[in-house]
């Protein structure tokens, strides 16, 4: 009994339980360190003052967003290749896309909060902002598609294909938007005046932020994956019950 429970437990997890716990602990530690460094130790920016501290969240969130979408793409490819096809990759792709979408929203919201004091506007038609906004909607569509119930294999296949369609679009969007904005006006956001060389404690804080968000991503991915397997297990049990009920009802009515 205990052995089967442990076996089932291992199958529901992406990472071994011990590793998952360790990542959770490290995530908390890194977030604590980021708070201390970002709010206390790092000096205020010479031009932007305390507003610049948003960068310690904004840039790591953007990094983790790209990481999440990259993992979604990779997992989708692994699902589509027959030799590596496994529902593990479907769950990873879906879980990672969900976290990526949250991170995209966070990146946009933080960028907006940062932009208000620094540029005086909530939004600027900067190439990176526009690309990120399109990215948000691309992956929102993918998740809307994933939310539609279907046979697990059917859903996995169309999600994986859509993930690739979306991924191919990202560089084209990036390229065309970049081209558009640089041809028609000066880049305002990444003006060197406003973004002096980052060094010393500030760079260290930024690296801590990247580490914290990477760990946070892994921790969330592990949890979301477990949730996905448990949901699948529930669906399977419901199916078994439905088959039993169907056969039983039919033989009952026949006798």
């Amino acid at each position, binding site marked *: 009994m205990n052995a089967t429970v442990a076996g089932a437990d291992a199958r529901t997890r992406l990472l071994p339980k011990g590793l998952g716990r360790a990542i959770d602990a490290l995530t908390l530690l890194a977030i604590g360190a980021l708070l201390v460094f970002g709010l206390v130790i790092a000096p205020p920016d010479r031009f932007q003052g305390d507003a610049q501290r948003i960068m310690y969240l904004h840039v790591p969130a953007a990094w983790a967003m790209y990481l999440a979408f990259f993992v979604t793409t990779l997992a989708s490819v692994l699902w589509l290749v027959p030799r590596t096809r496994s529902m593990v990759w479907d769950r990873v792709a879906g879980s990672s896309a969900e976290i990526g979408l949250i991170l995209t929203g966070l990146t946009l919201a933080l960028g907006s909060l940062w932009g208000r004091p620094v540029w005086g506007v909530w939004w600027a038609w900067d190439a990176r902002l526009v690309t990120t906004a399109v990215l948000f909607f691309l992956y929102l569509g993918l998740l809307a598609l994933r939310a539609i119930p279907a*046979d697990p*294999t059917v859903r996995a296949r169309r999600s994986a294909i859509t993930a690739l369609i979306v991924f191919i679009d990202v560089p084209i969007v990036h390229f065309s938007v970049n081209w558009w904005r640089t041809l028609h006006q000066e880049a305002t956001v990444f003006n060197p005046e406003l973004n002096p060389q980052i060094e010393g404690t500030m760079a260290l804080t930024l690296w801590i932020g990247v580490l914290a968000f990477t760990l946070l991503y892994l921790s969330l991915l592990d949890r979301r994956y477990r949730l996905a397997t448990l949901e699948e297990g529930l*669906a399977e049990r419901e199916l078994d019950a*439905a*088959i039993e009920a*169907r*056969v039983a009802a*039919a033989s009952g*009515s*026949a006798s």
Partner: protein
Amino acid sequence: MSEPRPRGFAADRDASLPLTPVSSVVRLRTAVCLLGRFPALAGLDLDLDAGGVVLLSGPNGAGKTTLLRLLAGLLPLHSGEATVLGADLGVDRRSHRRRLALVGHDTFCYDDLTVRENLRFSARAAGRDAAAADAAMARLGLEPIADVVHARLSAGQRRRLALAVALGRDPELLLLDEPHAGLDAEGREVLDALLRDARAEGRTVLVASHELDRTRALADREVVVRGGRAYPVEAA
């Protein structure tokens, strides 16, 4: 391509398909097929050999339509095994389709095309020529309405058209889902004749029907579907 094959295997079959005795047309083992989350087929076993008419009986909602659509490769197999005309449906549910025809509740036709256009399109798409379509049209007595668009056809005319579409494909395996529904007395005679001819020509026919007496008179075997499973009935 020219590797020797055991006797009794289809000679004209695609060599890339797994070898199966030609006599087995359908082989299902604990096949489960889902409609949404509902197990329409709940672990169904079925064996059909080549040739002959098989009656599929059973109450409404038993899974007859789902079974026929699964065999035609239109629905994915959730679990279990399914081999139809030598194709393993778990792997490939497309390559065997040209060799079968399905007459479902729908006509598979386009509202804005005429009877002739619909028949010719489906025959051409299935790799047959316009002559096959015209012959099927004549066989079902559809020539007087050849140039009427599908949207204007009556329910009975649509049933005949659906049969003609299937006939125009010259199938080895013919799957009929309630072919009697909506047909008038003359149409039923035509259908009976079609079934007799199909058997004489060595085709395998699976008929899901509630016209039990009429179909039993023509059928070689009967299989009852109930609660998503199949139960054989000894020859009457």
